[in-house]
Structure formats: structure tokens, C-alpha cells
């Protein structure tokens, strides 16, 4: 039985359990519901859980274990000469066996025995069924494939029978456990609580997944390239991955040009976003009338809702050429993709980010501080400059750091507008490249997970993750600390 159908059957049995449970609970007190400890549907739910949970758990565990056990057994069945070969060759062999096993399903027993005896050409037979094989499989491969199919079939039968039997057993237990004194609700609620507690750990699992997956591949990368060459190298020249060659072609993987490009673009972006964002936040919270605020604030926040690919496209086809032509008309050689283009557009994207965070923070400054300043005869702007902003400074720094973390991790704008040449330059009008751009260019296209050209992307990703994590943690800490100060 296919997995989906099996799960569906178990779920159907669960529904049956629910109905039976409700009926039995009602019958057990002859319709006088007040005598039940819980409402009838809790008894139904309890029967449903008994039916579904153990069976599903076993089926899922089986499905995880099945491929591992089978491929292990198949591997053991291979001749020793094959087992002694290199990992790459073995992966290829196992792949061929998989393909053959898939193909054998379409052949009749006589055709299979012909193929094993070498009388018929396997590749041609499979071709006629629409399955392509790269090369004629060796006899031991056909045997291994047959073993794989037999085991898979047996496993299929076992899991179907086992899963359904377990579901029926659970149904029986759940059904028989129903009696009016049983605290069905407490049990069901305990299961629900465990369920939602488990859901809340997904966040931790995601973080762990991010760190572990990248750490693993990064260590792999450092077995090809020395960490010193990566972190302190000043040349980025990964070369092309040479397929099939162990170790790949030699390339240079210096992080510094990418780190510099990322930092430079972020600095340009922040020098646009921080003044504009801060001034508009000040204006919105201290000067603007209520009507202006209700109209303008959502309008500015649209900027935050526009996907970054749209900004990138705008920078590529409109803003970049505009800046280039402007530069040409005053005699400056500005390339269409440059630090300036990418940084400026990214700065615009960050404006609402800085302004809405600063707005919150400025509003959190107690009114008494302002009133005190007005009482001494200060004007509004003097109050803002000398009282409100200094009081809000820690929070604003936090907001700027959060914006910086956004800028560092931003991808689509820089992919389209910053350029791809790794460049250690101070010239704002030249293209540079960033960490995120290089992650994209190393990981799109054909991947080969043994070459440093691909693995370097994971090292870059980990660097990016660590940088933004540090910024985020520090910024969130500052913002929280600041909020507590005035609470």
C-alpha cells in the first residue's frame, strides 16, 4: 500500500475510533451525560489518539529506517572488489543499482532471467519502456537490484500490515478504556499540551539546523582551503569547478574583498537611511498633525513592503543607467552597477525600517522630560536635539544596528546592482561584490558537493550568519535594556 494511502487509512480508523468512542461514552451512562467525567467528545478524542498516534509514529519511524536498512543490506551483498573501490565509484554503483531496480519493475520474469543470463540487452529492454540507463549493468548489479526490490516489497507489506494492526489494536484499547469515571479530558489535554510545546521547539530546531548544516560543510571546506587563506586572503578568484577531478582546480578564496564590499555598500546604505529615517521619525512623532501622520506613515511603510527584487530591478534598469548618464554629463566615470547605486537603493529600502523603529523609541521617551525642557524655555527643536534624542540614543543605536544587519544580509539588490567582480576599492563609482552575491553565484547552476568552489558558499553563509547574529543579539539587547529604563 502506498504511504499516503496507509496514513489515510490510519486517519480513517481514527475517525471511526472517535465515533465509536463518543457512542460508547454516551451508552455507558444511558444518555445521562452529567454522570460522565468529561464531555463525550473527549472520550472520542481519546480513542482517536490511541488509534492514530502509536501507528503513525511506528510508520514514520519505519519509513525513515527503511532506506537505510535496505541500502546497507544491498551494499553488503556486493562483491568485495566493489566494496573496496573509492567512495565516488561506489556512489555511482549504488545509483545504477537504484535505476536498475526501478527498471526491473517494468520487466516480466522471463525477460529478467534472460538479462541475468546475458541473453538479452538490458539497456535496450529498458529503453523500450522509457527508462534510460547510462551503461549495461553488470550481473552483480542486477542481483543487487533484485535483492533491493524484494526487500522493498517485503518492507512495504510489513509496514502496511503492522501499521494497520497497530491502529486496530490502539482502537480496541482506546475503546475498551472508556468508562464514565475515566478522566478523558485530562489525558487529551495533556497530549495537546505536549503537541504545542513540541511546536514551539521548531524555532530551536531551525537555528540548530542552520548552524549544523553550515558548520559541517564549512569544516569540509577548510579541509581544502586553510582557514587563514580564507579569512585573511585579499584575492577572490575561485576559478571554475573542474568536474570529476578530486579536489577541483586550485582557486583563491580570500574573504576580505567580499567583506569590504559588503561593509562599504552597507555604509552607503546607512548614510542614506539613517538621516532620512531619523528625521522623518522625528517629524512624524513630534511635529506632524494627526491627519498627516495617518496618511504619510502607511505610505512610507509601503517602501518596506516592496520585495527587494523590485528594488534590484529598479536599480538595474532605471537608477543605475540614470546615475551613469548623470556622471557622464559632469565628466565622472560612474559604472551602472556600483557601490553608489546598490547602496543608495538599499538605503531607500531601509528608510521605513529605521523610521518606524525610531518612531517607537522616540514615543517611549516620557513626556515629562519634554515638559521639563519646554518649561526652561527651550524651543521644540532644542528639546528634541538636547533632551529627546540623547534620551533615546541607546534605542536608536539599536535600531541602526538592526538596519545594518539587514543591509549585510540583503541579497537581491546587490545581486542585480552591485556587480560581480571582487574589488578592494575605495571608489564609490566602481562595482564591488558582496558575501551574499558570491553565495548566490557559487550555489546556482550545477553543484558538486566535493569541490571547494561550492563548499565556500557554506563558509560564506556561516560568516554572514555569525555577523548578523552578533549584530541582532546586541541590538535586541540594547533595545530591550532601553525599553526597561523608562518602564
Amino acid at each position, binding site marked *: 500500500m502506498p504511504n499516503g494511502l496507509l496514513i489515510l487509512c490510519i486517519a480513517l480508523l481514527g475517525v471511526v475510533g472517535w465515533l465509536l468512542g463518543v457512542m460508547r461514552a454516551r451508552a455507558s451512562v444511558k444518555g445521562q451525560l452529567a454522570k460522565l467525567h468529561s464531555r463525550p467528545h473527549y472520550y472520542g478524542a481519546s480513542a482517536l489518539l490511541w488509534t492514530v498516534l502509536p501507528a503513525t509514529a511506528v510508520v514514520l519511524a519505519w519509513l525513515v529506517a527503511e532506506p537505510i536498512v535496505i541500502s546497507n543490506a544491498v551494499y553488503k551483498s556486493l562483491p568485495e572488489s566493489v566494496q573496496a573501490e573509492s567512495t565516488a565509484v561506489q556512489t555511482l554503483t549504488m545509483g545504477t543499482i537504484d535505476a536498475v531496480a526501478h527498471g526491473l519493475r517494468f520487466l516480466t520474469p522471463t525477460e529478467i532471467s534472460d538479462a541475468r543470463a546475458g541473453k538479452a540487452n538490458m539497456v535496450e529492454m529498458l529503453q523500450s519502456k522509457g527508462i534510460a540507463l547510462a551503461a549495461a549493468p553488470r550481473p552483480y548489479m542486477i542481483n543487487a537490484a533484485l535483492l533491493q526490490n524484494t526487500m522493498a516489497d517485503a518492507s512495504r507489506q510489513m509496514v502496511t500490515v503492522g501499521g494497520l494492526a497497530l491502529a486496530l489494536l490502539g482502537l480496541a484499547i482506546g475503546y475498551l478504556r472508556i468508562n464514565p469515571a475515566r478522566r478523558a479530558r485530562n489525558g487529551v489535554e495533556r497530549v495537546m499540551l505536549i503537541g504545542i510545546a513540541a511546536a514551539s521547539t521548531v524555532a530551536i530546531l531551525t537555528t540548530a539546523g542552520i548552524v549544523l548544516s553550515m558548520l559541517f560543510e564549512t569544516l569540509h571546506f577548510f579541509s581544502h582551503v586553510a582557514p587563514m587563506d580564507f579569512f585573511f586572503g585579499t584575492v577572490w578568484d575561485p576559478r571554475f569547478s573542474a568536474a570529476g577531478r578530486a579536489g577541483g582546480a586550485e582557486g583563491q578564496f580570500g574573504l576580505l574583498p567580499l567583506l569590504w564590499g559588503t561593509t562599504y555598500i552597507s555604509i552607503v546604505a546607512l548614510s542614506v537611511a539613517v538621516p532620512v529615517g531619523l528625521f522623518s521619525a522625528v517629524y512624524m512623532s513630534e511635529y506632524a498633525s494627526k491627519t498627516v501622520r495617518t496618511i504619510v506613515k502607511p505610505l512610507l511603510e509601503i517602501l518596506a513592503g516592496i520585495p527587494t527584487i523590485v528594488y534590484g530591478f529598479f536599480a538595474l534598469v532605471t537608477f543605475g543607467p540614470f546615475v551613469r548618464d548623470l556622471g557622464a554629463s559632469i565628466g565622472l566615470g560612474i559604472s551602472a552597477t556600483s557601490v553608489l547605486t546598490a547602496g543608495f537603493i538599499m538605503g531607500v529600502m531601509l528608510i521605513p525600517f529605521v523610521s518606524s523603529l525610531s518612531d517607537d523609541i522616540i514615543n517611549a521617551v516620557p513626556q515629562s522630560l519634554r515638559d521639563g525642557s519646554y518649561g526652561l524655555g527651550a524651543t521644540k527643536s*532644542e528639546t528634541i536635539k538636547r533632551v529627546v534624542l540623547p534620551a533615546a540614543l541607546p534605542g536608536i543605536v539599536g535600531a541602526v544596528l538592526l538596519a545594518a544587519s539587514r543591509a549585510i*544580509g540583503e541579497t537581491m539588490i546587490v545581486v542585480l546592482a552591485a556587480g560581480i567582480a571582487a574589488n578592494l576599492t575605495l571608489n564609490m563609482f566602481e562595482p564591488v561584490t558582496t558575501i551574499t552575491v558570491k553565495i*548566490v553565484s557559487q550555489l546556482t547552476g550545477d553543484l558538486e558537493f566535493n569541490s571547494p568552489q561550492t563548499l565556500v558558499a557554506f563558509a560564506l553563509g556561516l560568516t554572514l550568519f555569525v555577523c548578523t547574529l552578533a549584530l541582532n543579539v546586541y541590538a535586541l539587547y540594547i533595545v530591550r535594556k532601553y525599553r526597561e529604563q523608562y518602564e
Partner: protein
Amino acid sequence: MTVTALPTSGARAKPSSTEIVASGIRRRYAAERRFKMYGIAAVIFGLTFLVILFSSIISKGYTSFLQSAFRLEVFLDPAIIDPSGKREENTLLMADYSALATDALIKALKIDPKVRGDERAAGALLSQNADVELRDYVLRNPGEIGKTVNVWVLAHANADSVMKNAFDREIPEARRKLSDKQLAWIDRAAAEGLLKLRFNTGLFTYGASSQPETAGVGVALIGSFFMMMTVLLLAVPLGVMAAVYLEEFAPRNRLTDLIEVNINNLAAVPSIVFGILGLAIFINLFGLPRSASLVGGLVLALMTLPTVIIATRAAIGAVPPSIREAALGVGASKMQAVTHHVLPLAFPGILTGTIIGIAKALGETAPLLMIGMVAFVVEVPKTPLEPATALPVQIYMWATAAERGFVERTSGATIILLAFLAMMNIIAVILRRRFERRW
């Protein structure tokens, strides 16, 4: 504090204190006005940019919703389509339909086929997919073979740009993509109503193509739809459950602190990192197919999860404790108080947060590049496991395409994407207005 700014002492003729204050006030008021102007300038800067961005994209993209097509009277010549007369599918598939279309165009434009090169020049005005359209028409109506039928056939992107006044006729003929003769034909066809701009349904139905006129966002729309469904089915239940636990049941201890810090951090992790996670876990470890919208949906669901959790917690937190206490007071268990009372009251807030989270996921590109969604997919996917692209990824691919006609397509796709986002956000705002409750 302004006192310190005043001159402290003067050896010579002292100005009176009213004079000092008066001059100071003028200066201070000027500074006040300047400061306010900076604020207004900052706001105007942001708004101006918004206007420029939208007007640039709309002015570049609105033409992509129209597409030029020739109305041709095509004679479905049996001698060309099916010489044997057996109506075998293979014969019908392989026939030379572009010849039929070109013949029809030559006849319509009254071009002399004997002049060398004219036949090819006329054929170049038709889309390279004209034969596919005709073939599909014949396969649908095999009974029409031998008759003359009236069909619309897409024009080539170059002819299309002439129709949209986007073609520069000033460039010398040798460097132009269309000759003077071809331009004259186009003008005549347009004047006679043979060549017309029609609504571009292909933009919404076609898949990837190397020809701008037959490239569309059909595959991308379906892919994005599958992904949004995956996000909805995964991120929303998980997020709501996690939020309920953290807000209502979790004890204050190290583990829950860790979970909270984690959620806040995940909300700020660069999206591309989620893409790397998807590549390493879902594709490398679990062996799911690359370019599949299921994988994209899983990655986007993980990305949206913190947003949903944070929005749900805020919505649950806004339900006053008196509701819970009343429920507990009449004998409900804590779980019953939450599921029967708190969650229904928090539902509008959860819904709004969810829609905003999904809108964010719909516009996300970078993580999808990591899991191989940058693919040339022609066939519309039928299941989430088949290769697909997504709307923003399609924009990225077209933005990097060299052909001039793709800029228009890119802007058109951007308009579609922004329209979807605007729709979702407006729905969120309406829901919030409609169901918002002040306690």
C-alpha cells in the same frame, strides 16, 4: 540650558539683556524652522522615491499587458499538413506550419513572393511560435484541414515594439532589427487592421521561453501558489501552536527564554541563510527534488514561522485576562479557556499577521535561488514535486535576460507581483478595521 549659550561677559559696551534675548530668539526660531524643514524634506524624499519607483515600473510595464497579433486568413493546405490524408497525429505534429502562416501573411500584405528575400523578411514579422499556435489549432480541429480559417497569430517581439512605439526608427537601417520595407509592411498592416494590439492572455499562461512574446508567468504563478499553500498549511498551524504555548502555558525558565531569543533572532536572519538551510537539509539530506515548489514552500514556511509566532503572540496578549478568568471561573480547564475563548477572540489579529507574513514570503527571492528555482520551466507543474519557478524568481531571470523585449515583461511581472501584494495587504487592513476590538 539656553542660558549657557549666551555670551557670559563683555568688557566693552554691554548690549542690554533684551537685545541679547531678541537676537538669540531670532536665531533660535530660524534654527527651529530649519529643523522642521529637514524633517519635511526627509518625508518628502521618501515619498518622492515611492512615486518614482511606481511610475517607473508602471510606465515600463503596462504595455506588456497588450500584445500585437496578426489576423490571418490561413489556408490549411492538405498538401502541406497531411499529404497522405491519413490524419495521423505524428504527421500533423511534424508539418511545416510556419510556411502556412508566412504564406497567409504574404497574401494579406500583397507581397510579391518572387522578390528574393521578401518571403523571409515577411516571415520574420511573425513570432517563432506562430507554427506552434497553428499546429495546436489544427490538432484541436482536424476537420478544418483544407479550409481557410481566420486566426490570430502572435507577431514577433520586434514588430510588437513598433506597435508600442518603442522602436527607434532614427537608427540607420543597417543597424536596425527591422528594414525599411518591413516597417512599411507593419505600418500598412496596422492601418488595415491586420495587425492589432490585443489583451495579452499569454502573459498569464505561458511558461519560460527564449522569445519575449511567448514568455509568461503561468508556471511562476502556479509555483508561487503551491508555495503559498505549503506555507499556509505548515507555518500557520505550527506558528499558532507555538505562540499559544509560549504565551499561555510556558513556564518561565531557561528553555523558554532560549526559544524566545531564537524566535526573535530567526526573524532577523538574512533570508539567503534559510535558502542554504533548505539546500543542505531538504535537498542534500532528505533527497527532495531540486526546483520543486514543495521545497520552496518548506523553506519559506520556516522563514515565515517567526512572523506568524510574533503576530499571534501579540494578538493573544491583547485579549484581556478577564476573559480567561471568567472562563476558568465557570469551570473550564485552561486548555478549554484558550481554545474556546482566547483563540476565537484573537483570530482577526492572527489572520492579519498571517496574511502579512505570507505576503512577505510571496515576494522573497534569495532563498529560492539557493534551491534551484532558477530553472527554465516550460510545462505548467501539476504537483508541488515537479519543477517550477516563483513569481519573484521569474522577475529575476527576466531582469538578467539580454533581450530588449524582456524589460517590458519584467516590469509586467513586477506589476502582477505588486498587485498581489497590494491585494493581500489591503485585505489585511480591511480585516483589521472590520474586526478590531478595543477592550
